């Protein structure tokens, strides 16, 4: 019996420990520090117009902030649903995350544009402040501009009904929603 023959076993024990730890963390969980905080300050160009926008530009609330990129193919799966949501009157702000802006504009031309505006976060600094894990992610910005919820992964009808209904009731028209909470 040689000690070195135990190396594969030890390596596996470490891996199994890691996987066990992995089970207890929810990859879609927002770092606690971010929840209930205002959306981080930023100053970035808007994707289509190129003019600088800051957090004040996210004025229509409650709204979704959707993190997307052309390199993310789950985003492609999600995109038609975002368009459907926009058509039903849900305001959506895009955070175009670590992406080539030219490609992103092409994407919007081709697939349709559900966004009120898009923050072109080429370096990913807004994403970093926000604690983005990857694309796609969708945040709820409540009426006070506070991050109220985070969803990691593809947004679907099912997820929306289950987790997002406290902020958006789709039966109601846009004016009703904003009538109730008041647009600042």
């Amino acid at each position: 019996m040689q000690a070195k023959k135990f190396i594969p076993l030890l390596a596996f024990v470490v891996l199994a420990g890691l996987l066990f730890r992995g089970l207890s963390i929810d990859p879609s969980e927002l770092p606690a520090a971010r929840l209930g905080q205002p959306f981080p300050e930023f100053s970035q160009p808007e994707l289509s117009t190129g003019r600088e926008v800051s957090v004040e530009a996210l004025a229509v609330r409650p709204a979704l902030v959707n993190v997307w990129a052309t390199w993310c193919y789950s985003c492609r799966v999600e995109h038609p649903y975002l368009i459907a949501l926009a058509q039903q009157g849900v305001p959506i702000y895009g955070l175009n995350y670590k992406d080539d802006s030219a490609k992103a504009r092409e994407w919007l031309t081709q697939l349709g544009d559900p966004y009120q505006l898009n923050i072109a976060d080429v370096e990913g600094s807004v994403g970093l402040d926000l604690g983005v894990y990857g694309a796609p992610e969708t945040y709820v910005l409540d009426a006070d501009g506070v991050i109220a919820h985070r969803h990691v992964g593809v947004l679907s009808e099912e997820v929306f009904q289950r987790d997002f209904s406290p902020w958006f009731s789709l039966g109601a028209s846009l004016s009703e929603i904003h009538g109730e909470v008041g647009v600042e």
Partner: protein
Amino acid sequence: MIPELGHVSLIIAFVLAIGLAAVPMWGALRRDIAAMNTAPSLAVGVTVFVGIAFALLAVSFLQDDFSVAVVAANSNSLLPPIFKFSAVWGNHEGSLLLWVLILSGWMTAVAYFSRGLPLVMVARVLSVMGMVAVGFLAFSLLTSNPFERLLPNTPLDGNDLNPLLQDPGLIIHPPLLYMGYVGLSVPFAFAIAALMGGRLDASWARWSRPWTNVAWGFLSLGIMLGSWWAYYELGWGGWWFWDPVENASFMPWLMGAALVHSLAVTEKRGVFRSWTVLLAIFAFSLSLLGTFLVRSGVLTSVHAFAADPERGLFILIFLALVVGGSLLLYALRAPSVASRVAYGAVSRESLLMVNNLVFIVSTVVVLLGTLFPLIMDAFSLGKYSVGPPYFNAVFVPLMALLMPFMAVGPLSRWREDSARRWLHELLVPGLGVMVVAALLGLLGKAAFNIWIAMAVLLSGWVALGVIKDGWRRLSSGMTSGLQWRRLSPSFLGMALAHLGFAGVVLGAVVVTQESEEHDLRMALGDSELLGAYRFELQSLGQQAGPNYLADQAVFEVSRNGEPIAILVPEKRRYFASGQIMTEAAIDASLWRDLYIALGEPIGDNAWAVRLQYKPMVRWLWLGSLMIGFGALVTVFDRRYRSQAVRNPVPQTGAKAVAS
């Protein structure tokens, strides 16, 4: 009633699997022949009852029994029957049942084809596979029962199968992939049986080698189909994404590639024995790890099944028992004496060692990339995602490193060879390939495309090695004329797989370097040029499918005024889910694909359209087909057929078998 019968069958299969895991193993320990002899019948019994359960679940789908939860969640009365059938494995519960069905199919095959093997070996192998079956049947029964009913609130109609999965490619992709995944349990079981018996010799390698090749061949075909499906079904022409779920199937493939080659050395030369055993354990462990990653929700992916921590914990415990137990057995029982068979630094053994190292490093690299987000998260170092740039940056050079050795491998001699002989064999044709590569590099869009030149050089080099080896076999010998019989299935399989690999590399590089795409707005009657091809939007219309309504656009493609094809891309809206799917239209040929996908409608009679020209993209899948079939062809080699007759009495010691 039918679902309940299915549930009962599954329970009977579970009980029989427990018997299979325990009785023959006990018999092998006590040398009790009667107990060992139960193994084949128990294996068949498990197969029959899992088969019944599977058939009854399929019947529930075909009869639209929406009182069964998985049917209600994944089918719909409007769904075409063929998709009702494939919907059986379009969900977590049903695909798990398919997993077990294929596992038991492999057990039955082992029982049938291994009748000539020593009884104790057969008993142990089947028993180990029985243990795996117990784990997965328990997983199915305890956490993922496919026969769960929705009573009394039975829905009137089902939610429909995810439209992405309503596709012929997806009917056969999972079964083929699972054939590969699960098939790796056979070499695993042989390795464990050999460790238990203390017999790691050439005959063990000869027994498990055809099984490994077949399983790995199926895995290659399954991965190929997945990539092909993604290409035409996701609607934007990508063919590999380094998604965690793709990686989950790719890691066992990489490890399997190492195992296939390492087994050759163990069979022919009796060396690398501990190493080969370890690879067999790793390959199957990676299959199990893949199952864990896909079904536990620790990593996010669009492919992933619904995340459920309880299921994750179950698989993790199972994984710990199987892999931990095997590696402990390895640590205790693997031969610690270095093999007495020597080989030189310049020899086929060394070349195959290089192969093994490259494939293992590649596996580790992919594993690290896949688990990196999890590692960082576990240590609270932040949340990360690892994308294609990482994988491409590390994986491409590793494959490039492999290929120079790949050409020499088939030509080299076992034990002791000389670099001078290699040079003599390959120098002149090698220079020829270099010239061709340099010329072809000039053909790309850019003035000189170094990547294409490199790919042609490396692929041509690999092909050269295969051709020279084939020629040497054909022309050498005492008599004049070509010796066709010298091209054994083993050689043909290897040749096919190596040529296929060269084809995949060439296709991957060319399609990455030379693809062209235009995103544009096209109205009725517009025509656009892409390279030499003219695309004209001739008409727009609507077409109703069985469970969807499609907008269609009819394009005529022509080149120099000659019409080539009529392409009809669609945008479908599925009734039940309201989901919108892009159906790309493709004109495929060996040298190029023309690919049209519809985006969004823009105004009256106009659409956003994506036109793509993809040169040599077919080579990816043709090459993968060759790899898969190459691996399958090797089993027809005579020496595997004769194994049943020969060797009724086990031989001991490392015995080199003449090729």
